[in-house]
């Protein structure tokens, strides 16, 4: 029998359920990434749930640095965009942050 706290140890916060991001949704997004994506092992969304958490944390920290440069305490989209521009590994996001001036714009692809 596993201990009650077994899964919560896996999370940095430990406050949420076993995985803080919904696995089914992750799987859907994975499937949409290409026609060739057919079979996904059970572990892959699990890895992604943690990877996305790390990604969000990194992007947010960098964006917050931009926010502080503007001498304010509220993060805006422009701070996220600036963080993307500044970070090499976020190059794949450059098109995304400069193309979405308005959330109700037409869908890409």
């Amino acid at each position: 029998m596993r201990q009650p706290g077994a899964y919560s140890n896996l999370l940095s916060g430990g406050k949420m359920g076993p995985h803080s991001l919904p696995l089914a949704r992750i799987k859907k997004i994975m499937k949409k990434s290409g026609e060739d994506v057919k079979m996904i092992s059970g572990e892959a969304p699990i890895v992604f749930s943690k990877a996305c958490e790390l990604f969000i944390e990194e992007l947010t920290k960098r964006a917050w640095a931009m926010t502080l440069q503007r001498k304010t305490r509220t993060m805006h989209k422009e701070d996220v965009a600036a963080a993307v521009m500044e970070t090499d590994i976020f190059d794949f996001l450059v098109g995304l942050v400069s193309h979405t001036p308005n959330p109700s714009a037409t869908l890409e692809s």
Partner: protein
Amino acid sequence: MKRDRDDFEDDEKPQIGSSSRTPYTISPDTTTSSYPKSTTNQNPYASKNNNNNNNKEQDRFLPIANVGRIMKKVIPGNGKISKDAKETVQECVSEFISFVTGEASDKCQREKRKTINGDDILWAITTLGFEDYVNPLKIYLAKYRDIEGEKLNVPKQQPMEQQQQQQQQPMHQDQNSPNLPYNSVYSAANLISQPPFVPGDPPFPLPFSQSSIQTGSLPQHDHVDDHW
């Protein structure tokens, strides 16, 4: 198409007159002007998120509440995050998933494998420059595998104290039944001298003895015979 539709259980409701369309295209029936946001459609995201020409679009992103929660963790307590910042990060995460999955999928194709597994994701993440993530991810995956493995191995338990007491009882009880029942409390594990609790790989303390799990072929009879 019906099968695809079944996949979208909580986020997508069938559109009127669009049952034959693929789930990913915006049909003329669902432009913003005619799209019933909150009357016939019970999608919880429809009213909360104006990012919604089509509620199917929400399937493209992770829930904004989850994203926002993770973001909040890494900024100071008095910091604030605007909604557009959260939405932007939400979109970026989906792009990240697509980006990494694409690389992993290419690798599987090159190696003629059909299933993308956790290691492929780790490889893609490293290749794309996020190698700092790999160590925490490996630890996370290992713990997950451990827990899942333990779930499969858990047998019917006996309390540990009971097992230890019975270890000390005289063996003459076996005289009556030289053939020990296989599930007797005199499991071979108790007869073999070893510590009742084997602290080993599991990172979490376990209430049961791992040694009691062993039910392979055991020389139970030999042990009994040795005493007589």
